[in-house]
């Protein structure tokens, strides 16, 4: 393009002079002799005047007054960064920052995090050796446990009692009769039966419960739960339940991969978000939130909640836990990715915004659940709460604490 022959007279300026030479002239990078040569080569008498015009425009451009950025720009950027960290952005965006031809967009945080690591880290298998070794050990332990389980289980069982009929009992028949298990098929799966036994703390007298009464009670409870579930909880009702401490929010995420970064942002005390998450959830609240296995009865009393908490903890503790086959309850609980308490202003808008951000960030659907009784939740007091008069009037609204469970759905 700078060849005069191939680019004759662009924009009405002299043909035999290249654009690069003209730029150098406008920028005062040519000597007087070189300028004279260009004037002669152009063959135009008004070329000096035209260049002076261009020089004048260049000076005006450079002299355009600068203005100060808005004073809140800094805070807006930080707030936008936090919001992006929560919501994430699609991987197609931010293809290349420097691609001048393409519009640029945000870099996904996960890619951003991956890029933060040095390239060699991704290729260095030796750096991952300890993790791989640990994973292999766990696999061996679990595999060995599965293989040895029947042998150990058989060895631990007492000898079958002689029955009046004289026939040897099955494993289920050998179970003590003082542990009624009406919810499971006793002969089919002893582990399920064991778990079901731990859930018989429904407010019925276990001693008097035969299979039919317990089943009926469970059915009635399930009906009540279904009826409650059938009534949709709108946001106003949800907020009311939240104030009463009876709301549970369940976020069903197909892929909870974004959870760590959302957690990091939303639990950061320095965050500018108008709401907070905290990981400090009382055990009883966690137990109340845990997804239930199919057929698992609801609890309706504080004692039932305590029993469920204990049974939930015992399922993961003790030597037997290493060899126990996963029960439906355990499988249901394995979907859980995190439990939190949301601290948010007691307003429909704030509550909806917080849930909207979380659900969008996780790609999750939101389910409201009504707890039959208030959950033992204490909202963490912040300095702003104590010194409320130091806050803007818009911040004087009450706040509520809402338990949130994130699970694979």
């Amino acid at each position, binding site marked *: 393009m700078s060849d005069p022959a191939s680019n004759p007279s*662009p*924009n009405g300026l002299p043909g035999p002079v290249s654009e690069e030479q003209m730029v150098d002239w406008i920028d005062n990078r040519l000597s007087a002799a070189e300028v004279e040569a260009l004037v002669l080569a152009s063959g135009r008498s008004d070329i000096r005047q035209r260049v002076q015009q*261009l020089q004048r425009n*260049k000076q005006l*451009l450079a*002299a355009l007054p600068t203005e100060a950025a808005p004073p809140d720009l800094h805070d807006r950027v*930080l707030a936008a960064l936090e919001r992006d960290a929560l919501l994430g952005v699609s991987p197609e965006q931010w293809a290349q920052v420097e691609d001048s031809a393409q519009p640029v967009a945000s870099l996904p945080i996960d890619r951003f995090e991956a*890029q933060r690591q040095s390239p060699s880290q991704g290729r260095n298998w030796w750096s991952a050796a300890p993790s791989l070794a640990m994973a292999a050990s766990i696999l061996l332990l679990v595999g060995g446990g599965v293989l040895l389980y029947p042998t150990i289980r058989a060895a631990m069982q007492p000898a079958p009692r002689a029955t009046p009929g004289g026939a040897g009992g099955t494993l289920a028949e050998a179970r003590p009769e003082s542990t009624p298990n009406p919810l499971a098929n006793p002969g089919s799966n002893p582990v399920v039966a064991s778990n079901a036994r731990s859930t018989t703390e429904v407010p019925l007298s276990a001693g008097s419960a035969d299979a039919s009464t317990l089943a009926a009670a469970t059915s009635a409870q399930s009906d009540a739960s279904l009826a409650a579930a059938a009534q949709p909880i709108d946001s106003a009702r949800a907020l009311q339940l939240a104030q009463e401490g009876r709301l549970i929010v369940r976020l069903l995420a197909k892929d909870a991969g974004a959870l760590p970064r959302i957690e990091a942002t939303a639990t950061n005390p320095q965050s500018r978000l108008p709401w907070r998450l905290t990981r400090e959830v009382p055990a009883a609240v966690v137990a109340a939130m845990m997804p239930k296995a199919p057929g698992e009865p609801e609890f309706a009393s504080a004692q039932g909640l305590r029993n469920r908490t204990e049974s939930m903890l015992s399922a993961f503790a003790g030597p037997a836990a290493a060899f126990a086959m996963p029960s439906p309850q355990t499988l249901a609980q394995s979907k859980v990715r995190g439990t939190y308490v949301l601290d948010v202003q007691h307003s429909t808008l704030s509550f909806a915004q917080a849930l909207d951000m979380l659900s969008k960030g996780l790609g999750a659907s939101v389910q409201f659940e009504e707890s039959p009784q208030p959950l033992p939740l204490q909202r963490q007091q912040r300095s702003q709460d104590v010194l409320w008069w130091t806050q803007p009037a818009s911040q004087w609204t009450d706040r509520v604490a809402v338990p949130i469970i994130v699970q694979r759905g």
Partner: protein
Amino acid sequence: MPPASDHTKTPQLDDAELVRRVRAGEQAAWSILIREHQDRLFNVCLRMVSSRELAADLTQDAFVKIIQGIDSFDGRSKLSTWMIRVTMNVCLSKLRSEKLRRHASLDATTRTNDDHDETTFAQQLQGSEPQAHERVEQDRERLLLQRALAELDSEQRAILILADARGVAYEQIAQVLGIAIGTVKSRVFRARTTLRDLIEAQRRNSP
């Protein structure tokens, strides 16, 4: 007024150190980066869209992209140059997607500069007569320039802002855009001549 310098950073924190800390996710470094460059980037956006509100939004977007994409800064150019380029991409993307070029032009520019004219005229009344006359003429020239700039094709406006308004060296522009320096000069020259033609057209149409 000369263009703002590209080196307004505190001497204690050079580009490499700032980039390292931003990459490490230090929020304090984010703040430093924003505070040191916000005026410069805001003015780039302001030249591109001629509206303070929109310029602020675009500057915010640009900073988010800069901080999130800081790993793609490879140090070939100065950090400030790279940031201006990212900002320019944000502006161009916005202008392309919303076809703002037309209505971002005259109204906002005229309003802004009419206000500016009133102020300067009042100030000029207090000055000596010849100086006031010169300043009126200068302001008129500036108004014509801004109107013409707003009329300019966004790509040409971008390269003029980089080269002439911000004073970015052609070599830096070439590195950032990934094109030959001759191509940069050619584009700058064509943008300058187009701008001149637009100014002349403005002058002919103005009373």
